[in-house]
């Protein structure tokens, strides 16, 4: 797996701006002039206030959207369709409720033309990896939130992606489950080392997981600062690393930078609500 992914999965965003046109014709700038590099195999967390366009950067990297200006390149190739070798994990689990768990995980290989029997075998292997043996025939609604997240992870990893895009994947989980899933994610990631873009608004989660934390400004978002996280790997349990002195130091630094943006975003929101007469 490592050999196949060598040099793959790096993301380079150059002066990327994305505007959306609302149905009424008004233009809304989600992100502007983003310059961002994720090295192959790097775990990059993206933090920023609500509505700053964090998710938009992911959809651009996935090739679901085109930038209005600037260029996005993944694995050295400019993105001009759905990015190959990418997998996405959404905040709400994107599982098909009418398919049993194993068929959900098998979707990736099936779409790529693998025979169904072979795809299901791969799916069962991956379910074993994420600790869900015995639940192959269950439907998603019969599983807990944490288990569904594991299924989502298996479904994303079965394609052996060189780039993993995660949009607040654990924010819908309770705190304990979230810690368990973070550990699980790290150990899975260390096995195949895809590059990761991990959007979150939980700064602790970002530092505990990532090699690099990118702070995005209040909307329209642009890169405010980039922090290298030099905590050693393997990190071990995320619940424990957050008491390490270096962790706290980094947390202070990054929070200083993030705090201003969070406050600015909050003021923006209040004033726009005032203008609309809501507040």
């Amino acid at each position, binding site marked *: 797996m490592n050999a196949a992914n060598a040099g793959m999965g790096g993301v380079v965003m150059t002066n990327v701006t994305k505007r959306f046109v609302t149905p009424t014709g008004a233009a809304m700038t989600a992100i502007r002039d983003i310059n961002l590099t994720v090295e192959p195999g790097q775990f990059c967390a993206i933090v920023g206030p609500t509505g700053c366009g964090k998710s938009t950067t992911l959809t651009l990297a996935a090739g*679901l959207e085109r930038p209005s200006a600037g260029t996005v390149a993944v694995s050295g190739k400019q993105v001009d369709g759905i990015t190959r070798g990418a*997998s*996405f994990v*959404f905040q709400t689990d*994107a599982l098909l*409720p009418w398919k049993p768990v194993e068929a959900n995980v098998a979707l990736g290989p099936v*779409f*790529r033309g693998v025979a169904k029997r072979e795809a299901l075998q791969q799916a069962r292997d991956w379910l074993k990896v994420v600790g869900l043996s015995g639940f192959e025939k269950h*439907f998603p*609604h019969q599983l807990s939130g944490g288990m569904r997240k594991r299924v989502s992870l298996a479904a994303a990893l079965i394609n052996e992606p060189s780039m993993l895009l995660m949009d607040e994947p654990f924010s819908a989980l309770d705190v304990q489950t979230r810690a368990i899933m973070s550990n699980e994610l790290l150990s899975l990631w260390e096995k195949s080392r895809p590059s990761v873009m991990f959007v979150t608004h939980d700064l602790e989660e970002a530092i505990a997981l990532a090699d690099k934390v990118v702070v995005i400004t209040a909307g329209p978002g642009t890169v405010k600062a980039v922090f290298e996280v030099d905590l050693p790997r393997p990190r071990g349990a995320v619940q424990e690393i957050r008491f390490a002195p270096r962790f706290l130091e980094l947390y202070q630094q990054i929070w200083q930078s993030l705090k201003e943006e969070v406050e600015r975003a909050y003021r923006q929101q209040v004033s726009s609500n005032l203008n609309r007469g809501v507040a």
Partner: protein
Amino acid sequence: MTTMSAATATPLAGDEQAITSAARERLRRRRIQVLIAQLAVAVVVLGTWQLGTMIGAIDPFFFGSPLGIVMRLVDWFANGTAYGSFWEQIGTTLEEALLGFVFGVGGGIVVGVLLGEVPFLADVFSPYIKIVNALPRIVLGSIFVMWLGLGLPSKVLLAAVLVFFVVFFNAFQGVRSVDRNLVANARILGASRLQVVQHVVFPSAMTWIIASLHVALGFSIIGAIVGEFLGAQNGLGLVIATAQNTFDANGVFGAMLVIGLLALGAEALMSIIENRLLAWRPKSSADSNVAGV
């Protein structure tokens, strides 16, 4: 400690059993009570009707009578109607309704998914669909009889048109309300447009489509019978029309009863199919709700 808990557990388990068996007994008794009450309602209504006609309070010429209806049905089944055996009439109507249902559902799904998937087509056709939908479509039956004659095709077409719109609107809405995340995820996993429709859009719209099938089934029977009213050589609609023209109230009620039973049977079959198709759904709280416990 162990012995103590074991000692207390045995009587507890006994209690548990007593409680569940008592609850089960209560449930059973309640079910019997409901059944008796239901039978009583039928007996009272039919009895009053029958008695009323016998003492002359209800004119059997206009309102028929339960016994008269039964006699009429027995006569039909035994001796047939003026245009062939009664079974043949039932068969004709069922065939028309079923064919209309199949064509209507098929057309509704295809057009609904197509317009739902291609917004341009939807924008172009939406005013026309609204216009056609605003028409009382039953009157189309007259045109169809003119075009296709008194035989089977005109009824099938009328039933299909009635069914089509119900299914179409649901299929269209179903496709439009597919979770965008599911589509995005499938695309990232490498699905082609056709695979997205096959694996995500269509199954997702299926819940909406299936919900429309019950109504569609009713419409297909209505279409077949109204079509037969408007002009036919056989079928239950013709049986009713004939009975009406000869002031045979028992005949009208009798045919009505048969149609009602057919519709009920079809409905039950539909429910079975629906449960098979939607087996993946979480059991709704209404299903698991146990009365009286």
